[in-house]
């Protein structure tokens, strides 16, 4: 177990905490928030790849003992994707609230099939 | 020498924050809590930042920290003020709460 970093362990646990949120939450807003947490857990895992204590940011003229720059570049893309998905989801939810007057999975399901 | 003074000031800032947090949990009144939270935000943060500046000496990093300090000095009181004002405007009265809470604590 020497090669498994502490960041990785925490990322996996938070990933499945948000999974627990997804399988239990009755409210749509909470589900959307859970998806956001899941994304940040994966981001944390990406940043933890190959990280050791005392590493510096990969910026500047002197590049010795720096962190891996590629996951950071990937993760910026992932963050933008996360916020846009969240915003689209919430705007869908607001429209749904307007039409159905409900934001609960069970109630929305019942009302939308009528 | 500078670093010792800096460390001492940082520790003082941490103590201020600690006392503030105890206060937040002690008082139940909303406005008292806002007061204490504002203390943490302003006094605690400013003290710690001044400690960092002293510890680092005169450099570009310190200049940036000072800039941050100015922003905090301007913005933190404003946010606390707006929170309190909004609470007041939306009908959170001071007097009624006051009496019942003072007895409790």
């Amino acid at each position: 177990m020497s090669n498994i970093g502490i960041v990785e362990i925490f990322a996996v646990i938070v990933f499945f905490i948000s999974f627990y949120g997804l399988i239990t939450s009755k409210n749509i807003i909470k589900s959307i928030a859970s998806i956001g947490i899941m994304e940040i857990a994966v981001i944390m895992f990406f940043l933890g790849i190959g990280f050791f204590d005392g590493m510096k940011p990969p910026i500047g003229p002197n590049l010795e003992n720096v962190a891996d720059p590629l996951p950071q570049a990937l993760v910026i893309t992932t963050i933008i994707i996360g916020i846009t998905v969240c915003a689209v989801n919430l705007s869908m939810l607001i429209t749904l609230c307007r039409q159905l007057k409900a934001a609960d999975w069970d109630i929305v399901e019942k009302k939308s099939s009528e | 020498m500078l670093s010792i003074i800096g460390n001492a000031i940082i520790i003082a800032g941490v103590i201020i924050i600690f006392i503030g947090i105890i206060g937040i949990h002690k008082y139940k009144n909303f406005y008292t809590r806002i007061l204490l939270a504002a203390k943490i935000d302003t006094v605690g943060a400013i003290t710690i930042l001044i400690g960092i500046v002293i510890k680092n000496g005169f450099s570009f990093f310190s200049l940036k920290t000072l800039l941050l300090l100015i922003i905090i000095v301007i913005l933190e009181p404003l946010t606390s003020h707006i929170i309190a004002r909004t609470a007041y405007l939306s009908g959170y009265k001071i007097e009624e709460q006051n009496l019942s809470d003072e007895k409790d604590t």
Partner: protein
Amino acid sequence: MLYLFSLVPVVLAILLYIIPYIRVIRVMALLAQLAVTGSAIYVFFLSKSGDIITKIGGYESVLGITLKSDTLSSVFIALTSFLFLIVVLYGFNEDSGRFYWFFMFIWQGLLNGLFLSRDVFNMFVLIEVATIIVSVLMMYKRDNRSMYDGMVYLMINTVAIQFYLFGIGYIYKLTGVLDIDVAMRIMSQMEPSTFYLPYALIMTAISLKCALVPLSGWLPKAHGTASAPTAVSALLSGLHIKCAVYLFIRFQIFFEVIDLSVFFMVIGIITGFVGFIMALAQSDIKLILAYHTVSQIGIIMLALNIPDAYSRTGGVYHIINHAMFKSALFLCAGIISEVYGTRDIYKIKGVLKRLPLVGAATIMAILGITGAPLFNGSISKYFIVSGAGGFVSVMIFLINLGTIISFIKYSTMLFGKSEDCGRVKIDGFRQVAVMILGIICFTGGIFGEQFIHFLFNIDVGVDAAGYFEKIFLFAASVIAGYVIFRYYVRNSLLLKKISGFHLSFRGMCASIGFFFAMVLIMIRFFA
């Protein structure tokens, strides 16, 4: 220059959004589609003689992103361009608003990019953008039902894509690269057991995108949404689900060290059965077609996992065939439900009399999907069976029988007497689009061997005697299917009970976790 395949449609979409004249938009869209289709066919001919590789920026292949067009991806790109051309024809005289073509063409660019890309993270970005576009197109008319369906689609796919992202994180951690080909080379020198976890994560995500059985709850909601534009439903069922199957093929080659084909074969068989049983229980024509997509994906999955070159080729050919007849069926269903004003199969009567051309196209597509002799479905199913063992071919036969029963029910709407007789005049472009697809179903059957040779450079021979035997088998199963339909399906209480069965969002999330655990355990014991 392969990146132009993904960037030209996107820039075209933005131009169409900015131009306010509807006539200009239509003509431009059609011309651009013709150009894209032409260049796709050109690239297809080029890549028959050898892979085309574009290194973006000219950096070394691991540093930048590499696009590569081999036989498989060029076939898929040609298919994408062709189907979009048909859809543009279909909606040529339709007034569908400013956003419609904007989203459509961006969607095309993304699918092209996905088929060309060789970078796992790039694939993630493309899939995610495509997911948002599909969900918005699905709820284009913004009524309650489609809002809910689109939202479930978007959220469940976002959850699944997080698993995929986690998986490529592990691939990067273990191999140090993101390029598929280079990563494969590095992987071959490592121990297979290190790749169990990324395999399970990625396969869970792709299985959800393919709608294999415990994870197929979103598909009928998404593909059968009542108010989604017809062309969108057709492309979803015909094309978009295939990009998940394409990813499955790619990652199966990628993880060649881990062999879990028996597991996926079993899942494929279950998917096929569940699909047609649920389809038998429905009465909404769009929902019937949507459940049949589940069933056909099961057959394709089964075929792709049979360890035999013939069967796999048959599976890939079945992907193309399914794209043709399923989009033809959806487009026809759209016209029919528009004319009749209802989607209930028992209320529509006499389509052949009122809409002769649409009815003819429907019949051809039905014959294709049920695997009738001389039509394209029969050729691909023939190849799939030829490489499979006894048990698997019996299973395929049973799934096909179920499909036949269900489509006998579907074809009852073609005959009979309608209340208000007389031909209905519909738009010429639509009829042309539908008829092209119908005729391709027929020619794909007659020239099946030549098509396979042309597409995949594989020489296959159809054994005349064996094929003749299949004709009898088909006739027998049609008769059996009619009998079963007449005396059991029509008044079955059991089917009525299961017709309303569906998973809630929480149930779907839980089934993702369940599937993930199942794959991990299966790897432990069988791979």
